[in-house]
């Protein structure tokens, strides 16, 4: 748990509720395809995936090159393994773009939201300024009034 005042990490945020409306909606309103895309991108882009892939490649090469193993399906120079790599790369590209497109869309929505918030904030700021200007005017009038009264009194005394 994050202590009071500190910024929660992404992991903590995912577990809890999102606060920003764009985050909320991007998470809550995702279609099945978008959910799968997010899962695929975060699955491929993880240390687990890299580790499992490395182990898989090592086993493949060891079985197909060491005398001890009798059943060999892809001997040196590992043409089928090459195909497997290519297939992986051929799918990684589109998944990368899929997740990138989704991020770009989120960026677009975020900016639209920012524009709206900024508009509201600017309106409020200008309202505050106007209100203070009104107040200054009123205070000035009070001061003038007071001075006039003092002047009249002083004249009477003299």
């Amino acid at each position, binding site marked *: 748990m994050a202590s009071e005042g500190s910024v929660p990490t992404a992991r903590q945020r995912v577990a809890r509720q999102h606060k920003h*409306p*764009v985050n*909320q*909606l*991007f998470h809550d*309103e995702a279609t099945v*395809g978008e959910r799968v*895309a997010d899962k695929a991108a975060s699955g491929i882009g993880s240390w687990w995936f890299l580790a499992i892939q490395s182990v898989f490649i090592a086993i493949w090469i060891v079985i197909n090159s060491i005398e001890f193993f009798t059943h060999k399906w*892809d001997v040196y120079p590992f*043409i*089928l393994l090459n*195909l497997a790599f*290519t297939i992986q*790369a*051929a*799918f990684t*590209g*589109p998944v*990368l*773009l*899929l997740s*990138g*497109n989704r*991020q*770009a*869309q989120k*960026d*677009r*929505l975020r*900016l*639209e*939201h*920012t*524009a*709206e*918030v*900024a508009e*509201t*904030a*600017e*309106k*409020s*700021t*200008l*309202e*505050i*300024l106007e*209100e*203070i*200007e*009104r107040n*200054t005017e*009123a*205070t*000035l009038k*009070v*001061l003038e009034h*007071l*001075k006039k009264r*003092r002047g009249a009194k002083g004249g009477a005394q003299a």
Partner: protein
Amino acid sequence: MAQPATKAPVSLGADHKALIVHRLRRVHREPGADHKHPVNQAHYEDSTLSERLADRVAAVIGSWPFIIAQSFLMVVWVYLNVWAIFIAHWDPYPFILLNLVLSFQATYAGPIVLLAGNRQSQKDRITLEHAADESDKGEQHITKILVEIKKNTELTLQILRELEAEPS
């Protein structure tokens, strides 16, 4: 003196949520339509032909129909070259031509990913520049407000002095 009209603090309500959902769904179909934020306008509505093309290509390759079609074609290719009896096997096991075709795809997908990424980072750059401009503007407003409040305080202090000097 007329009472100043008090307004409730402006908040983004439920219809704002609906608006974002509407945008979320709409941008899939018609990208580059009526943006409010100037950076979005510049990025999508004022994009050049090559930028539009880059966006289109990234949108097509990075889509489920593309991935599904590619999978389907791969399965058909392998099927025809292993089990088909009515046509010649043009690329038998271990499918060297399929390998070349997929390598071709991957060779182009890489640069296209970078193309899309560069475009996104360019957008990020102008977003930050715009944010800096906006924050300058905000600071100007705040400075104005501060000056105004100081003026007000000065006047109030004058009133206080006048009142204190007044014989009770």
